[in-house]
C-alpha cells in the first residue's frame, strides 16, 4: 500500500483522472481559480464555499479535482493583478506588487508575468511531488494516533494559527476563540443538549462553517468595498512588449524560484502560516540572498519570482496535513475539510487506505492542473487582463448576490441569510480593527472536532486527564502547544518591559502608544 508503491499509486491516480469528465472538472477548476485570482476581493476559500451547494450532486473526485484546481489557480492569477494594477489579486500576492508593478512601469511587465507563471509552475510541481512523497510517510506515522493525539494535534494547529496569524497575539487569540464559540452553537452531538440556541429552532443545526467563510470573507468584503471603493484610486499599466524573459532574467529567476519553492512548501505544511506569510518570508530571503538585492523595491525580478513560487508551493504544502491527518492549517483547507465532511469522508490516514482512487486521483490532477495553469496564465494572459475591466460596483454586487444564493441554496431557509448578514457585519468590523479572519473559520471547523476528540480521550481513559501527557506522541504535541502559548506572552511582556526601560532611558521618541 505505501512506500515503494507511490509510483504505482500515482499511475493509478492518473488513470482515474484522465477521463474526459474528470479532466473537464480540472479545467473548470483552474479556469475559475485563475479568474478569482485575478479579481481582487475573492479568494479560493470563498469560492469553494460558494460552490459547495452546487457540487453536492457531483462525484467526490470531480468536486475535489476542481477544488484543487481552484486552490492552485488562485495562486497563479493573483500575480497578474499585482503586477499590472498594483493591487494584489490575492493577499498572497501583496509583496509581488512591490517589484512587479515597478517592472511593469519600466516595460518589463511581460517578463514579470512570465517569471511569476513559470515560477508558479516550477514551485507547484515541486510541492505536489513533495506532497506525494511526504503524505504517505505521515500517514504511516499517523496510523498509531488515537483520540488524545488528534486532540493535541488540533490544539497545536489552533495555537500555531494564534501565534502566526497577524501582528497582534491577543487579536489572533480572540479570532480563534470566536470561531470555536461559533462551532459550539446547536445540538451537542453527545448528549443532545441544545447550546446557545436561545430558543430559536433555526439554530439547532448550528452555524455552518461554510456560512462563516462566506459571511466573513465575501459579505464583509462587500461592506468594506462600500466604505472604501469611492475613495481609492487605481493606477493600471497596460502590458507592453513580449512575454519572454531575457537571458539575464532567466538566470536571476532560477535561484529565486528554488528558494521560494522550499520556503513555501515548509510554511505551507506548518499550520496557521499559509501563502501570505510564505510569500513575505520568501521576499525576506531574496533581500538577503538575491544577486539583485540592491534593486529590490525598484523592480528586481527576484522580488516577483521568489514570492510567486512561494505562494504556490505553500498551497501544495497545505494539502499535506489536510490529506494525511485531516487537519487544516488555513481557511481554504478548512473549507475543503468541510467538503470532505459533506461527502461523509474523513481525511486522514484511513482516507489513503479506503479512498485510494480519490486521494491519488487528486494528486495526479494537481500535476495536470499545474501544466494547464502554465498555458492558461502565460500565452493567454491578455484574456485574463480583460477581467479587470469588469466595473467594480457590478462585481461586488454580484459577489453579494452569489453569497446570499449559496447560503439559501444550501439551507432553503431565509433565516440563514439573516445570519449571513450578521456575519458580514462582523467580518467588516474585524477587518476594520485588523483582526485576522482565517482563524475564525478554522476555529468554527475545528471546534466541534476538537471537543469530540477531547471527550473521546477521557472516555477511553475513564476520566483520567493524564492521558494527554503519558502517551509519548501526545506528550510531545502538548508540550509544543504549551510552548506556542507561552512564547507570544513572554514576547509581549518582554517588549513591554523593554519599552519601560526605554522610557527611563529618556528615549521617549519611540513610544507612540
Amino acid at each position: 500500500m505505501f512506500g515503494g508503491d507511490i509510483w504505482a499509486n500515482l499511475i493509478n491516480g492518473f488513470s482515474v483522472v484522465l477521463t474526459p469528465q474528470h479532466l473537464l472538472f480540472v479545467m473548470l477548476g483552474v479556469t475559475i481559480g485563475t479568474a478569482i485570482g485575478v479579481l481582487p476581493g475573492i479568494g479560493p476559500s470563498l469560492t469553494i464555499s460558494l460552490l459547495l451547494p452546487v457540487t453536492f450532486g457531483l462525484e467526490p473526485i470531480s468536486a475535489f479535482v476542481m477544488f484543487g484546481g481552484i486552490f492552485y489557480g488562485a495562486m497563479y492569477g493573483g500575480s497578474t493583478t499585482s503586477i499590472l494594477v498594483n493591487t494584489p489579486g490575492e493577499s498572497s500576492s501583496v509583496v509581488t506588487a512591490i517589484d512587479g508593478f515597478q517592472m511593469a512601469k519600466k516595460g518589463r511587465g511581460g517578463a514579470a508575468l512570465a517569471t511569476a507563471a513559470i515560477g508558479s509552475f516550477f514551485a507547484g510541481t515541486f510541492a505536489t511531488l513533495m506532497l506525494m512523497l511526504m503524505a504517505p510517510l505521515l500517514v504511516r506515522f499517523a496510523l498509531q494516533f488515537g483520540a488524545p493525539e488528534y486532540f493535541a494535534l488540533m490544539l497545536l494547529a489552533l495555537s500555531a494559527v494564534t501565534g502566526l496569524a497577524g501582528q497582534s497575539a491577543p487579536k489572533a487569540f480572540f479570532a480563534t476563540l470566536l470561531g470555536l464559540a461559533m462551532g459550539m452553537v446547536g445540538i451537542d452531538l453527545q448528549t443532545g443538549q441544545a447550546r446557545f440556541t436561545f430558543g430559536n429552532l433555526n439554530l439547532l443545526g448550528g452555524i455552518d462553517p461554510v456560512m462563516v467563510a462566506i459571511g466573513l470573507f465575501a459579505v464583509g468584503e462587500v461592506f468594506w468595498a462600500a466604505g472604501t471603493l469611492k475613495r481609492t484610486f487605481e493606477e493600471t499599466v497596460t502590458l507592453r512588449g513580449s512575454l519572454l524573459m531575457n537571458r539575464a532574467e532567466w538566470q536571476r529567476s532560477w535561484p529565486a524560484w528554488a528558494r521560494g519553492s522550499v520556503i513555501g512548501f515548509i510554511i505551507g505544511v506548518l499550520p496557521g502560516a499559509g501563502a501570505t506569510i510564505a510569500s513575505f518570508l520568501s521576499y525576506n530571503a531574496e533581500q538577503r540572498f538575491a544577486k539583485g538585492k540592491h534593486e529590490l523595491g525598484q523592480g528586481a525580478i527576484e522580488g516577483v519570482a521568489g514570492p510567486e513560487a512561494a505562494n504556490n508551493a505553500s498551497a501544495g504544502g497545505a494539502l499535506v496535513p489536510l490529506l494525511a491527518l485531516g487537519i487544516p492549517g488555513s481557511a481554504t483547507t478548512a473549507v475543503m475539510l468541510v467538503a470532505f465532511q459533506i461527502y461523509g469522508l474523513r481525511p486522514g490516514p484511513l482516507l489513503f487506505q479506503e479512498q485510494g482512487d480519490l486521494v491519488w486521483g487528486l494528486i495526479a490532477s494537481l500535476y495536470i492542473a499545474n501544466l494547464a495553469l502554465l498555458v492558461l496564465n502565460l500565452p493567454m494572459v491578455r484574456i485574463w487582463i480583460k477581467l479587470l475591466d469588469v466595473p467594480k460596483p457590478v462585481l461586488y454586487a454580484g459577489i453579494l448576490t452569489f453569497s446570499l444564493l449559496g447560503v439559501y441554496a444550501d439551507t432553503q431557509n431565509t433565516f440563514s441569510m439573516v445570519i449571513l448578514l450578521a456575519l458580514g457585519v462582523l467580518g467588516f468590523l474585524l477587518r476594520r480593527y485588523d483582526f485576522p479572519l482565517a482563524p475564525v473559520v478554522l476555529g468554527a471547523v475545528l471546534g466541534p472536532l476538537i471537543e469530540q476528540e477531547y471527550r473521546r480521550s477521557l472516555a477511553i481513559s475513564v476520566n483520567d486527564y493524564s492521558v494527554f501527557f503519558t502517551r509519548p506522541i501526545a506528550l510531545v504535541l502538548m508540550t509544543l502547544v504549551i510552548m506556542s502559548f507561552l512564547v507570544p506572552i513572554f514576547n509581549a511582556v518582554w517588549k513591554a518591559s523593554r519599552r519601560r526601560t526605554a522610557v527611563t532611558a529618556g528615549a521617549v521618541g519611540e513610544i507612540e502608544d
Partner: protein
Amino acid sequence: MRAIRWVALAIVMFGAFYLWGALQIRESTTYAAVGPRFMPNAIGLGIVLSGVWLFAFPGAPPAPDSPQAMSLDWVSIGLMVLLVAAYVALFRVAGYVLATTLLLWGGAQILGDRHHLVRDGVIAVALAVVIYYVFSQLLRINLPPGPLGF
C-alpha cells in the same frame, strides 16, 4: 481612549454574555466527566481573557495610510446593510428574480456606479433570470417564485 480599547471592552462583554449562555445549557446527569458545558465555559473564559489581554497590549496605533486609519464612507456601508436586510425581507414575498434584480442594481448604485443606471439594470435583470433558471431547472434547487411566477 483609543478605539481598539473600546473593542477590547466589547470583547470582554461578549465573553461574559457567552459564559451566561453556557450557564443555560442543561448539564446531563450521565457518566461523562466532560459534559456539554465544559468547552463553552473554557471558550467563554478565553474570550474574556483575550479582551483583557488586548486592553493591556493594544499594540501600536495604525499607520495613517493603513485600512484601519482610513476614513470610511459610513453612509454607503449603512445603505448596503439595509439593502441586504430588505432583500431578505422581500425574498419570499417578491420572488427571487424581482428581489435579486433590486439587490444587484441597488448594490451597484450604492457602490458608486451612478453613471450606468440603464446598463446596470440590464445586467441585473439578465443575471437574476439566468441564476433563477439555472438553479430551478438545471440544478433542481428551489428558489422562491413570487407572485409573478418567477
